[in-house]
């Protein structure tokens, strides 16, 4: 398994500002993912962040709004830019460990409220 931490755990931000969320894992992993979970909903993949390459964004998510950094094999950041109330969600990072199961482990999440 993997131990994943996220900072901040929660934040309340004003419309038009940006927030950077950090994700730290206790072992080196190639594949990291960022998800959004709106209240009462399932998880939606924002992007895949592999070290040494540009992040790959899913349909409906763009780099200008959600820039991602992946400077090394244990760390990634997701920035939510120019926030609006519609960005209020839980943001989760996850990692996929090598092996046949390709299981993903999730961080504790960052609860973002935009006012």
């Amino acid at each position, binding site marked *: 398994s993997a131990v994943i931490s996220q900072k901040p755990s929660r934040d309340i931000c004003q419309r038009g500002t940006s927030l950077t969320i950090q994700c730290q894992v206790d072992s080196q992993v190639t594949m990291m*993912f960022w998800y959004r979970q709106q209240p009462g*909903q*399932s998880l939606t993949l924002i992007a895949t962040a592999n070290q040494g390459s540009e992040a790959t964004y899913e349909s409906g998510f763009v780099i200008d709004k959600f820039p991602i950094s992946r400077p090394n094999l244990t760390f990634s950041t997701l920035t939510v830019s120019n926030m609006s109330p519609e960005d209020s969600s839980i943001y989760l990072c996850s990692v996929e460990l090598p092996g046949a*199961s390709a*299981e*993903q*482990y*999730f961080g*504790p*999440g960052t609860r973002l409220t935009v006012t």
Partner: protein
Amino acid sequence: ELKVEQNPLFLSMQEGKNYTIYCNYSTTSDRLYWYRQDPGKSLESLFVLLSNGAVKQEGRLMASLDTKARLSTLHITAAVHDLSATYFCAGHNYGQNFVFGPGTRLSVLP
């Protein structure tokens, strides 16, 4: 494109009863996962099912996979209040992304 459905979406059951949550998926899926999420918490991995006929059990939960029917089940035996949570299944094909179902919100009543 892989799509994952779950039913029921909401389940309220009495303690001590048995019930099954169903997870259907639209195309082949190399692997099937079950996760648990408590309110305000992250996702906890419960089971990974890798092949047709796979069955895994942990405590009062048992998961199975039928790849021919494109169906996975999560069976709850003699439910207790501590099992109240939202349960997600997710499909995954090699080289592609996870696809999560909508989740089943389970409430176990005393």
